[in-house]
């Protein structure tokens, strides 16, 4: 059934809200100096730092998030609801608040941060590792929620049969569960990586904005508009880069999924 005409008008406006700003950005990019802007030292530094930290935090999300998703998917419905809510809170929370929360726990005067600092002289905030922690905090819920849904719907029947055929728990996990949820795992990982790449609020509060250490691409873009660090042109170039990689990720995920479904 076709939706009513006025509904379609709203839909088109909605689409415009999502797409037009991005198109607008394209008109401001200085295409002639794009190459130079992209290889400017501070740009390359920010890009490299972003890739490195996002890669590390995605690995952390996978290593910690997959077991968590499996735990939630196999828990009783009541336990699962509580756990899922706990995972959802950071997802809904403004990342700034997340950054503040991380500071309160791991900062130099934080509950865990203080004794660690007094004992070892090490403090996590304002380090590259701090960026990874902030990104993991913000990105992991995406992976967990995506994966948990897939794990719940992908049959426990297969696991039951595999165990009855003589497969140990470990074998069931590696030979049956993991292959069955691979599409969800890839989707969740990509989402988490994209979220980590774009992370700003928690990073800014918890890790600060120091070039080469914690100034990732989003922070570099922000800084550019405050007149420090990279130029506005560079900021636009960086934004374009993020936009292109987002498009590539979405397109790649789509074709990959279609292939997986067959």
């Amino acid at each position, binding site marked *: 059934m076709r939706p009513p005409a006025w509904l379609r008008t709203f839909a088109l406006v909605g689409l415009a809200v999502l797409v037009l700003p991005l198109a607008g950005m394209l008109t401001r990019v200085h295409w002639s100096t794009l190459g130079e802007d992209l290889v400017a030292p501070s740009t390359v530094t920010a890009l490299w730092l972003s890739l490195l930290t996002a890669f590390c935090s995605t690995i952390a999300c996978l290593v910690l998030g997959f077991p968590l998703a499996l735990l939630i998917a196999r828990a009783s419905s009541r336990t699962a609801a509580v756990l899922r809510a706990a995972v959802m809170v950071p997802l809904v929370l403004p990342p700034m608040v997340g950054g503040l929360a991380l500071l309160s726990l791991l900062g130099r005067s934080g509950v865990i941060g203080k004794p660690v600092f007094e004992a070892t002289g090490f403090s996590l905030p304002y380090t590259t590792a701090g960026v990874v922690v902030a990104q993991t905090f913000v990105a992991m819920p995406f992976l967990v929620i995506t994966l948990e849904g897939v794990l719940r719907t992908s049959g426990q029947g297969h696991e039951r049969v595999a*165990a009855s055929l003589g*497969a140990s728990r470990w074998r069931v996990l590696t030979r049956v569960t993991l292959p069955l949820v691979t599409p969800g795992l890839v989707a969740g990982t990509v989402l988490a990586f994209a979220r980590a790449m774009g992370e700003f609020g928690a990073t800014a509060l918890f890790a600060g904005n120091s070039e080469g250490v914690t100034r990732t691409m989003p922070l570099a873009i922000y800084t550019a508009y405050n007149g420090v660090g990279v130029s506005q042109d560079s900021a636009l170039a960086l934004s374009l880069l993020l936009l292109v990689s987002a498009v590539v990720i979405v397109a790649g995920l789509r074709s990959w999924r279609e292939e997986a479904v067959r």
Partner: protein
Amino acid sequence: MSAGSERPTGAGLAADLVVRRESFDVCARLEVPPGGRLALLGPNGAGKSTILGALAGAVPLAEGRIAVTGGGEQARERVLDAPGRRSVPTHRRGITLLEQRPLLFPHLDLVANVAFGPRARGMGRRQARALALDWLERVGLADRAAQRPHRLSGGQQQRVALARAFAAGPSVILLDEPFAALDAESTPRVRGLLTRELARTGTTALLVTHQLSDAWDLADRCVVLESGTIRERTAPEQIATTPRSRFGARLAGFGVIEGMCAPGADGAARPVLRVGDALLPGVPDPDAPPRRGESALGIAAPEDVDLLPLDDHRGRAGVVGQVIGVQASAGRVRIEAENGLIAQVSPEAAARATGGGLPVVGSRLRLAPSSLRLVQDRRQDEAAR
């Protein structure tokens, strides 16, 4: 562990289990001798799946024990589960499941699916593959060995699932309504294969079903489970002729009415079934006679139940019931009453009872069984084999 399938594995199953559920406890004593095939019949929600879950190691026991007996050279009993002792995990039980859905692994081709069990039990890659190909040959799908499951029809998938279950070399195979999801065309082939391979390998089997025909074809004994309790233990053919439980009678097409076993009106030896204020004549079942003064089931073939007009009180020989189903076929009318009785009479007899025309759903009639077989209404799982 040997995954060899040519030789009977010769293990029996002895389970005496109590599992707590929210609505009721499931209590059942099941014994299947080596190579035996037991059918577990029962309505939905009777606890059949709970029993399978307990046997497979997915549901904890509250009381009782599960053991595999015999089992080749060491003719010893191996306890799988009992409270207060560490239960043997599913993958070490040697109890394999074949369910309603084939549940083939979608990411593996057919050979790899069938080889999954042997590989999991430590067989070498090449040997497991050869064994899997043998099994695919047996179920007639060797030419599709390299294909993925999604390219197969439902019946073909179930044949692969069957091959996969047997290839694992189980000591006991649990068949959970293995034909329920198949269409009419593929059912006979899968059923034939299953019958053949059970006989050839001598694998001990427990079949869960609510089809009497499945039990006939595959099982040598059967038990009827109702509300978590075993109500009947018998041979499959016997359920068809002389069922002794509500569900068994329903399966075989008999009517069942609940009442109280009472002495006959003349104080004679023959008891009657008291239903409300009606007294129905009956013959006690020799194998499960009801005790006087206790609740009993009256079981009657539809042909042995007459219809009488509502106001016919002769000898209090009928019981009034509301009609819940009317079917007419081959010159007979089959009327099902809400009290459980079923009458099958000629259209003329039906018209006489209603005072003209066929009975309709919702109308009330007097049903008069000429002879009821009176059976103890078992509430306990009693050791009557």
